[in-house]
């Protein structure tokens, strides 16, 4: 099939955008914002084009571009998307598009901020569309690293009163400062990368094909003996980014300290890279290994769900609440993946998209509230609904998605995962999953009540509602949430096609 190189364009648009932004004079207020917006807009249009043009009846990887890079080592520039990555490309495009608008009001080093943001997003797109493990890893690192600067330079610090027996230690390592958060996040993710690199290189070696090409490796059956110890390595490596317990603590600190758009991208998209990696590299290339270890994946996922929700309940800092809710929701993603059946995996991928958009919305809103009220402590808030009805409405929509209210996309995802969970070998996973949804309702509504309801605090009588470009982000994201909640099949259909292909690898492996 002849087509113009859509995927390369999707990669190029943010990259060129980053370059162009970098070379703008720094006093050009509009130019450094409009260029990223246009770059993000192009990717958005292209990703919607992909979604429309993807041939569901054929399935498989489409829009393939293949040029050898280093043939001696079997490295090539190989791009392509299937339903799963398609959904995630779609998600990324939405988040970056809205993220650009959500950070419109950043005044400090705007140019550098947008440059890094676009570079990061180039990496994310790269991971989702590359069909070559070498390229995959390259983009993965590109996606992980700009975060260090984004948090370290534009982040916000918060004084945490040291308490308890570890008080001195906590003070000395600087818990709560943006530098601490940036360093923690980066070190954690590089720790994961080390595992991934080992995993990918071992796959390359043991397959004996002398190629990093995903499709060729996919067609090849890796020796089950290797799969057994390779899968946990890959799982831990990607799992760090997906926030698996107990390697999740970078996420609350990182997301709380990061600037709005960075939190949106990170919680919304980057955590999905981890889950995507587990499914794509871990499960698709190593079905035997996955089957062997799926009990661990699922158990940790259920811990994530319940533990994340309960921890979120304890938090009094709005950003931490949202961050812990991400930990909880990533548990649902991983649980869906661990079910290894059609509804579960469908739900897992759908949850990646849904949670990405939802958490993007929530972080955008938290950013707005913080910017206007200058506090993240929910106990200091109250009655905001009166002064910022718009933000309250969108916050409610985000919160309701989070607790899985039907009619919004979160429900579809969670419900599919639950359907899958009961049919998995470990049926009892269903119970903590559903309970987690209840706990989510408790902390989400509690937070909403404390922030927006209740008597109005006169201290905030000049609190403004969202303005101008900020509405764009909120409206677009909520619109997608509702759209996906009402007509999920527009996205679920291509996902389903790809999930079935993945599951075909498990034929004869699963009991």
């Amino acid at each position: 099939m002849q087509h113009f190189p859509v995927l390369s364009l999707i990669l190029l648009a943010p990259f060129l955008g980053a370059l162009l932004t970098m070379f703008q004079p720094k006093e050009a207020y509009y130019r450094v914002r409009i260029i990223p917006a246009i770059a993000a807009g192009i990717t958005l249009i292209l990703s919607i084009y992909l979604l429309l043009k993807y041939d569901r009846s054929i399935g498989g990887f489409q829009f393939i571009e293949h040029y050898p890079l280093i043939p001696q080592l079997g490295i090539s520039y190989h791009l392509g998307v299937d339903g799963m990555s398609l959904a995630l490309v779609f998600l990324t495009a939405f988040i970056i598009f809205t993220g650009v608008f959500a950070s419109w009001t950043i005044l400090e080093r705007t140019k550098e901020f947008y440059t890094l943001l676009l570079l990061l997003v180039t990496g994310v797109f790269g991971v989702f569309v590359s069909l070559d493990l070498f390229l995959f890893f390259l983009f993965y690192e590109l996606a992980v690293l700009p975060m260090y600067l984004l948090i370290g330079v534009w982040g916000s610090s918060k004084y945490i009163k040291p308490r308890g027996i570890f008080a001195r230690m906590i003070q000395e390592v600087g818990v709560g400062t943006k530098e601490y958060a940036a360093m923690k996040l980066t070190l954690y993710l590089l720790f994961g990368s080390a595992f991934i690199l080992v995993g990918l290189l071992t796959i390359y070696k043991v397959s004996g094909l002398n190629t990093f090409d995903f499709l060729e490796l996919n067609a090849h059956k890796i020796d089950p003996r290797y799969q057994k110890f390779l899968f946990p390595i890959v799982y831990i490596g990607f799992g760090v980014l997906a926030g698996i317990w107990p390697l999740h603590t970078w996420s609350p600190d990182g997301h709380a300290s990061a600037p709005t758009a960075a939190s949106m991208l990170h919680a919304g998209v980057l955590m999905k890279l981890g889950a995507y990696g587990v499914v794509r590299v871990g499960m698709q290339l190593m079905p035997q290994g996955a089957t062997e270890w799926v009990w661990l994946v699922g158990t940790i996922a259920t811990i994530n769900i319940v533990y994340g929700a309960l921890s979120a309940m304890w938090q009094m800092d709005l950003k931490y609440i949202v961050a812990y809710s991400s930990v909880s929701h990533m548990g649902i993603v991983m649980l869906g993946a661990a079910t290894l059946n059609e509804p579960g995996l469908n739900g897992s991928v759908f949850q990646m998209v849904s949670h990405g958009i939802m958490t993007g919305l929530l972080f955008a809103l938290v950013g707005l509230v913080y910017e206007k009220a200058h506090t993240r402590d929910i106990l200091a808030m109250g009655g905001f609904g009166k002064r910022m009805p718009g933000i309250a409405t969108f916050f409610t929509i985000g919160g309701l998605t989070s607790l899985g209210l039907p009619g919004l996309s979160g429900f579809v995802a969670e419900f599919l995962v639950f359907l899958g969970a009961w049919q998995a070998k470990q049926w009892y996973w269903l119970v903590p999953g559903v309970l987690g949804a209840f706990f989510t309702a408790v902390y989400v509504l509690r937070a909403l009540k404390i922030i927006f309801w209740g008597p109005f605090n006169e201290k905030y009588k000049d609190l403004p509602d969202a303005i101008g470009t900020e509405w764009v982000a909120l409206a677009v994201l909520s619109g997608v949430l509702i759209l996906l909640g009402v007509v999920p099949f527009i996205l679920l259909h291509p996902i389903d096609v790809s999930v079935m292909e993945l599951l075909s690898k498990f034929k004869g492996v699963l009991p």
Partner: protein
Amino acid sequence: MNQVQVLTLLVLLPPLISFAWNGVVIPWRRAGKPAAWLSILAILTSFVASLVLAKTVLASPGPYSWEWTWLPFQNFKPIIVGFYIDPLAALMLVVVTLVASMVQIYSLGYMSEEPAGSLGRYYTYHSLFSFAMLGLTASASLLQIYIFWELVGLCSYLLIGFWYQKPSAANAAVKAFWTTRLGDVGFALGIVVLWAHTGTFALPELFHKVEAGQIATSILALTMLLVFFGAMGKSAQFPLHIWLPDAMEGPTPVSALIHAATMVAAGVYLVARIFPLYSHAESVMTFIAYIGSFTAFFAATIALVQEDIKRVLAYSTISQLGYMMAALGVGSVMAGFFHLFTHAFFKALLFLAAGSVIHAMHTNDIWKMGRLAKPMKQTAIVFIIGTLALAGVPPFAGYFSKDEIIIKVVESGMVLPAIFALATVFLTAFYMFRVVFVVFFSHREPEGHPHESPAVMTGPMWFLAALSVVAGFLFKGLFEKFFGHAAEAMETAQEAATAASHVPGWLPILTLILALGGILLAYLIYQKEAISHERLRAQFRPVYVMLQKKYWMDDIAYFLYRRVLVGGLSVICGWFDRYIVDGIVNLVTWLTRKSGEILRLLQNGVVQDYLYGVIFGLILFILLGIF
């Protein structure tokens, strides 16, 4: 598209359109009145359409169903959404649209003091509420019921918390959501498990399968029990009833809507809707009967001592819902649904009338009212009509339906439910007339200057009052015709029990005597004051305190929420996360940093000293290499 399809869409779409328009076109909503009129117009359209639909469906019962794919699968059957219209659904649609339109019209008067923006929001929620409830009613699959079920919950949350700046309203709203959500955990689990074993959510298919005996009894019992938890939450059955009295914090018309036709009716409707499934799970049926009858009695006793007029009505709602559940539990869809039908009218009426009183008095406390019959003649009359209907005095609507339930319960041969049911008749009559006498006839001077409510409020009240009078004898035949057969199906299943018991002919007379006895007692205590209620209170102090504290159910719930969940588990988890999981991470950081601080002493900056290190290392390596 055939006529039923068109009509169903005509019922469902107007509230949705009204919601979407009011929701998205912000200036329109902020204007208040236009939003209100649009919403009312929409629900009236739905009402008319539902009447025509009911007429069509009752003429040829169907069932009609049609569906679309919602979630595609390859290994499994796709999950569908669609509509399933039979007489049950059609009649429920009429009830919902009728009560909803009455409430919305009435609200124009009741909410007249609200600012425009807030009024628009109110009607936007109302439209969504109506749509959700109508959607639930017409659903063709369990999943779809669940979807609308949750939307109903959302709307009640929004409407109860409508005056969100009032802390009590905010708390009541989240409490309602959480409690019903807890029940929904069961509901969700139930339908997931059921799907895993049948591969479908579609009602017709499920009915077919269960008839054919393709679902294992154990699975059916398990899933139906789980689903019933959902119904317990929504229909406020013990012990998940705690949210309902608090829900009085919302505007009174909302209470009327929630209590009469939408939220709480959803649970009963759900059980009636999937009754073919329940009828094959006998153990669950028995459970339902016990829970229902116990709830009826339990709530009635609490209602005896409430001093807030709306709370009395709230507990009476719980009590009546208990009746409905009990009826379903003993296998009579007809009795349960008929009571739901009549109850919708007189409970809505009672709430609207109570709202009218509150609107005039600006208080909820019955002891601050008195002799209101004179200034508020119309309200008093309709309130008494409602009360008589609720108390089950012939020929008012409640008599027919409640009588039917009691007969069925006694017929079932279960002793305890029967006793509960009969005792509740007496209690109901007593506590309702307590309110009537205290508020409308007692000798106390009312505080302030009560006045009759405007016509926009009394109009709907009169309309509902008329229905409360006639609905019973007018529609009994209809219900028997369409829903009687379900009971027969049940009878065959429970042959032994049914054959053993027979209903004594004096039963209706007994219930009538009990009701009149309750009225008489209330008259003696509160009107004639022949027996001093203060003395009674002092004499039965422990009982009084227990009832006043609502059996400490609220306190237990609060304890579970505050101390166990938020103050217990979450603190443990949060603490563990910060100090243990993250603590270990920080410890590693800290150790690294400390060891760095020690090792940096070696770096004295004199390059030559470093060279000694190099030589030393070289020697070491070579020695290692040699040996």
